[in-house]
């Protein structure tokens, strides 16, 4: 597993680093006595620093794919590789650590811890790590994130004292606090009005540019989809379009293509 700084260095040097690779991934859910195939042999790659939109209508498999990339669900068949590690067969402890170190989450319903205030919610993932974080550095970093998401005046407020947009900003700061390589956002604008939704996506894009953090978000909102520089469209569990920076990106990863070239 490469560090975020090493990946950044590679990116600066113009190297393309593949962070996510799905290879012929299938996911079957039991539904009563029958089975539902939510994802039907999907393959694609996501590169370092991409701003990725996984688009498609309800039931197309967006959330299932996002869950598998986020290591909170495992494929029935095929492989999911995150930052060079195949997630299948990892023990619960290892996969928890992988999530903690590599991935940040932004949820549709914000999912802030109700009893913690803004600062504490953002700090929370740092406290789950094995190493005790440096207090001063942590405070400065969290304050920076709070300022970045525009919530400096709200740092001592509880989630129920904030608007939907403010809560999602807290969630974005929380997702970034561990400096993850990937931030996953499952329909982050679904519970927001269109104006606030656009602001949130703009904020994510800004952070993506400034920090070179890879953002992968699912949405069915066409307006938001167009902001992404890598769009993966799904329909009935299949990829129907995979456009990276306006170019068709097939199953072979860009990094592999670059190497071949």
């Amino acid at each position, binding site marked *: 597993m490469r560090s975020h700084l090493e990946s950044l260095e590679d990116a600066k040097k113009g190297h393309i680093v593949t962070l996510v690779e799905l290879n012929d991934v299938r996911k079957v859910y039991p539904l009563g006595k029958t089975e539902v195939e939510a994802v039907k042999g999907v393959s694609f790659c996501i590169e370092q620093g991409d701003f990725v939109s996984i688009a498609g209508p309800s039931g197309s498999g967006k959330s299932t794919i996002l869950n598998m990339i986020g290591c909170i669900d495992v494929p029935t068949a095929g492989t999911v590789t995150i930052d060079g590690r195949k997630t299948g067969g990892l023990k619960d402890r290892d996969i928890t650590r992988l999530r903690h170190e590599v991935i940040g*989450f932004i949820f549709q319903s914000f999912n802030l811890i109700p009893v913690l205030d803004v600062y504490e919610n953002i700090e929370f993932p740092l406290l*789950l790590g094995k190493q005790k974080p440096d207090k001063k550095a942590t405070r400065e970093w969290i304050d920076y994130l709070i300022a970045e998401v525009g919530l400096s005046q709200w740092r001592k407020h509880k989630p129920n004292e904030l608007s939907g947009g403010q809560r999602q900003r807290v969630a974005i700061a929380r997702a970034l606090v561990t400096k993850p390589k990937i931030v996953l956002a499952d329909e982050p604008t679904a519970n927001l009005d269109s104006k606030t939704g656009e602001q949130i996506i703009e904020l994510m894009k800004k952070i993506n540019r400034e920090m070179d953090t890879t953002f992968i978000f699912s949405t069915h909102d066409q307006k938001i989809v167009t902001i992404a520089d890598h769009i993966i469209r799904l329909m009935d569990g299949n990829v129907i379009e995979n456009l990276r920076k306006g170019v068709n990106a097939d199953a072979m990863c860009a990094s592999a293509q670059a190497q071949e070239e």
Partner: protein
Amino acid sequence: MPVILSIAFRNLREHRLKTVIIASLIALGMFLLVLGNSIIDTGKAGIHESFVRSFSGDILVGPPGKDNAKPSLFGGGFGGPNMEPTKTVPDYKNTYEYLKAVPGVEVVDPQVYGAAQIELTEDWRAFVGFFGVDIAAYSAMFPDNLEILQGHFLAEGEEGVMIPEKVYLEALEKTKVDMKPGEKIKLMGFGGGTKIKFLPVAGVFRFKSSNTALRDIGFMDISSLRYLQGMVVGAVSQIKIDDTAQNLMDSDIASLDSFFDDDGVVSEAPGTTTKSLSQASLDNILGDTSNRAELVKADAGAWHYILLRTKDGVDPAAVIKDLNADFKSRNMDLVALDWEGAAGVVASFVVAAQTFFLILVIIISIVSVIVIMNTMVVSIIERTAEIGTMRALGANKSYIRKIFMTETFTLSVVGGLIGLVLAGILLFVLNRTGLPAPHSLFEIIFGGKIMHPVLSWVSAAQALGIMLLVGIVSSLYPTMVALRIQPVKAMQSN
């Protein structure tokens, strides 16, 4: 404050209803446990005190009964006719001397217990238990346990009964017969066949200890009690019969007839001397009770058990242990018991109360566990998204477990302390006002009509332990449910 504590405490505050339900249950359990245990412990201490000081001494030594039944102060039965003959101390004289010489033993007091029926009128009869005692030894063992209401306590060698106040008053009320000192009353014993004896009342008394269980027990001179119990009386057992007399007793009726015929030993002119009968000579013959006094002495023969009082600072339990080991090694048919064993049925009332209370505690604990478990499961279901989010953000299972364990531990301690404080306050009030026994059965458990319960700190610590255990046990399943929540639930919480 570590974030786990912070989350746990704030969640308890946030989910107030759940917190109040669980803490109240634990507080109620703690309250009942501490209150019940303190009452039982106070009762037991009262019974212990009254028994050791008034009835049993520190140790009872006696022969085991049928099927190795433990000897008791009340022989094979209590409060009714003792139909099963109680075994007597074997080789009494040597046993008595042996016990007197045991290091740490201060007083040795042999006793007999038996029930007899007092019959005052054709319609009124009462079974009364009697202690037959060696007056000197009994007075040394229990110098200040009786309150003589009428008459006097039996003197050494005096024939008579001491009537307990309760029996005296009942008889007076029902029959108008006043069993005042000097009155002769009819007593019937049933040991080895029905026996009747008329005995004078020496006095009416009550035990200074208010133990209700022993309000029916009186005293009888040892010789009369042995007679009524069909026990081998010392006077008979000590008669030495030579071969001639034995042959005579064994001879048949015909030979006995021939013994008294004209040719027999009785001559027509027996060599008798005539003496004038005077009051002085009659007193000389009939008033001399020295033989009888000799026969009822402690070493005369049959005693049911021997009570021992240990010296100050000597642990009776250690003496009992040594005695039993010694009895075994010497092959003596004796066992030594503490006051609880000696109290027999009376102590078993306390044991029964404790058992009943234990069952109550188990029921309360099970109900509490179920209610707490359900409440927590509901709470966990409500917090599925929160738990899933924590897992998704990188919290491992042990982190989630710690949060729930902290919550449960906090609830148990807080609830437990609330219950303890409430029980302490109530016990303080009851100690001041006194707790009247609601029923005569409770009087035995209470050790009297009114109890002044004191908080038992040992019980309080035990109760707190039980409540913590209840809290932990009831959180096991909910925690398991919480640990099963997968991070994907965070995504599905829309």
